[in-house]
């Protein structure tokens, strides 16, 4: 397959975007860093459609540091589907995938990828890489698409028993082998120094982001959850380049200034909310309603947690393996419970909201245990909104808002607020 097809793929997509893009509320973008973030993601997105780029499709958590060290564009189709949903492009894409045999009960991120490929909206990959972290479906879909494109598929097998002594070396070897193979196949130099540099950038960025997370513990919270949650996409996909360091540094400085001046994300913060899982990408009004209307600020999102320790650039593969293995959502649920417990304490949480993505078996299934083992004993209410991050066909704005009203009412009563 000739890579000049990418031009056609981009034109297909651009035509649709121009037709359908609805002006989304940009009022959440209050920070310069957020604009820098959009600009970086846009730049990477456009480069992925260029003929001369080497593009690797990667599922969440595939270390982008390795790809940047090889001068390969990491392309995260799941993130792009979220962008399509934001532009209301997914109705058609999902329908096409369903006609092709994909069930509506599967994850709509993955279904969206299948539909986009059928419609030629995605840039043709040179490689596809998936990990065993979290969901099982992404590896299946990537493997299937690798056959369609006749491109190499790489799989990073991360053991579920992350604490086993062999795990770090086992994952590290896979990462090293993968980098060597990709370098060889794409005529890139396997330059370990470039990887070490990428690890240094990654460390700097994650250090700033961890400080950002710490600033968000402040009362009143300096940042809106509606603005913060989309950083999760960037956290998963752009570690290892200096631009990421600039963005995280700018974000830190902007929030620090707000904290120093005592400026909160909203006036009169009433409640502090912990957000679990992702968000519905086709609407921005939900967060607006919770945060600005009800003054219940989403002070932290679990997806934005910097759970890994500083990496050692002298041992890049081992460090990246440790990063993968330290993902709190992976492995038995106890580790996740411990993290949730610390979030609740550190961020002075009043209530928890979870947006339970319909196609996800992995994240939603732990909710009851979190409720039973962590939240009940602390008397912290949780609202679980069953919905779909991408597929808006069954979303009912009114119903969701009614449930939020009831939830806020509970929080108000607990705090003794009057209506």
């Amino acid at each position: 397959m000739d890579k000049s097809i990418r031009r056609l793929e981009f034109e297909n997509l651009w035509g649709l975007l121009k037709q359908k893009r609805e002006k989304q509320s940009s009022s959440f973008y209050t920070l310069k860093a957020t604009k820098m973030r959009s600009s970086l993601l846009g730049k990477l997105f456009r480069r992925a459609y260029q003929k001369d780029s080497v593009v690797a499709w990667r599922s969440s958590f595939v270390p982008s540091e390795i790809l940047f060290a090889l001068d390969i564009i990491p392309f995260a189709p799941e993130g792009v589907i979220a962008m399509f949903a934001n532009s209301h492009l997914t109705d058609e894409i999902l329908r096409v995938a369903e006609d092709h045999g994909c069930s509506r009960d599967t994850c709509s991120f993955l279904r969206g990828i299948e539909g986009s490929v059928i419609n030629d909206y995605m840039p043709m990959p040179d490689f596809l890489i998936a990990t065993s972290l979290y969901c099982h479906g992404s590896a299946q879909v990537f493997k299937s698409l690798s056959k369609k494109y006749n491109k190499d598929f790489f799989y990073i097998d991360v053991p579920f028993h992350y604490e086993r002594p062999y795990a770090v070396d086992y994952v590290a070897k896979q990462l090293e082998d993968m980098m060597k193979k990709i370098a060889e196949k794409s005529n890139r130099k396997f330059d370990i120094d470039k990887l070490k540099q990428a690890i240094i950038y990654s460390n700097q960025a994650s250090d700033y982001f961890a400080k950002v997370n710490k600033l968000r513990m402040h009362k009143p919270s300096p940042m809106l959850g509606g603005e913060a949650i989309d950083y999760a996409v960037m956290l998963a996909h752009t570690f290892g380049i200096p631009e990421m360091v600039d963005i995280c540094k700018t974000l830190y400085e902007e929030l620090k200034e707000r904290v120093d001046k005592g400026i909160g994300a909203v006036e009169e913060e009433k409640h502090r909310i912990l957000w679990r899982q992702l968000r519905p990408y086709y609407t921005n009004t939900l967060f607006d309603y919770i945060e600005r209307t009800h003054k219940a600020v989403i002070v932290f999102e679990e997806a934005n947690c910097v759970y890994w320790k500083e990496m050692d650039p002298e041992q890049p593969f081992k460090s990246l393996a440790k990063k993968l293995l330290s993902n709190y959502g992976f492995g038995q649920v106890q580790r996740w419970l411990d993290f949730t417990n610390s979030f609740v304490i550190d961020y002075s949480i009043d209530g928890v909201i979870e947006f339970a993505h319909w196609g996800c078996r992995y994240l939603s299934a732990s909710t009851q245990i979190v409720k039973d083992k962590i939240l009940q004993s602390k008397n912290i209410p949780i609202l679980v909104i069953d919905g779909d991050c991408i597929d808006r066909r069954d979303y009912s704005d009114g119903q969701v808002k009614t449930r939020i009203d009831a939830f806020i009412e509970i929080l108000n009563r607990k705090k003794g607020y009057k209506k």
Partner: protein
Amino acid sequence: MQKTWVGEEKIKTEDLRIKIRKRGERMSGAIELVQNEYLIKEFIKTVKKRNEQFLKNKTSPIIGWCNTYVPEEIILAFGITPYRIMGAPTSISLSKAYLCGNISGNVQSLLECALRGDYKFLDGMIIGASTDATKKLFDAWLRYAGTPFNHLFDIPKFIYEGVYKHYRESINSLVEEIEAHFGNKITESSLKEAILVCNKTRVLLTALSNLRKDNNPPISSLEMLEICKLAMVSDKRFFNNELESLLTKIKITDIKNSAYRILLTGSFQDQPWLLESIEENNALVVCEDLCTGLRYYTGLVDEDVEPIEAITKRYIEKKPPSATLVSIDQRADFIFKLINEFKIDGVVYHILKFDDPYLFEFPDMKEFLESKFIPMLRIETEYTTSTMGQVKTRLQAFIETLKFTKYRKIEVDKNG
């Protein structure tokens, strides 16, 4: 031929088949069919009775397991009885409090059965981490099911060169935890003995299933399902002896069966209603590529190599893969081989609602089977019988269409 135990057993089982085929002059086929049915019923009754007694007067520990990638050999080598737990197609109420609703029905049902006390006799439980749902089942099981010993057996998700190490480590982890909890040790000889026992079960079940390659299958799919389920929950030595004896007695009949020959593949399926629904439409399920079928008993552990290595090789290489192993190419090849061997007229691809590996695999499998002009029907069911009516109608229509494809096939064969 290599003179290994496995090789010898193969010859032995082949001898059984020859014996069966050469059995004297044949009486009228109808009488043989009735006799077969009686013999199978008696066999099932005997094994079930023995199981009941065993559970009543338990003399050794029992460990439950789910998922066919959990190596029974290891459990057996500890002197512990492996017991496959299966759900029940009753309504789900208790497990809803601990698992979300969009998880496949059989997983919910397993927890439901545990919560209502059906598995109280278990001394331990091993859950295979094959899907997102089973990983989450383990989290809930550990906290609410009340089994004294619990282990999550990690299963690799993709076949590649490093996968053997992963699986071996999973075995090591299992051995360490059983040793620590039950206080006894595994030895090389106990492991080899366990391999022999499990291999024998596989050989016998394969021989029984292969009887259906003939045009006049002496055993029905319902009987095969029942026997395979019994193999998973019985004292294997007793089961093997009984099944060996049954195999020598089963008679091949001359009655030609013109029913359409169906291959059933897809999600976990242990309930008879689906098979009954297919077979009430002039069709016979002659091959089950299921966890309660070929995926359980196909592929032997080589006894000539180091036991753990041999077990690893069996589960990764020799056992027919399930969709959880991201293995569409291997699965497609295997299914195509079965289609030829069992002279299949049509494939029923069954998916349990929310069972991701099969939901995601389906479009590729559909493309593959279409490219080979093999009729296929996809059906999606709940684990309970709530979708039975709808499924029956679809099956009826599908089997009706097989008439035309079969007729076309005969015409093509006739005219070259």
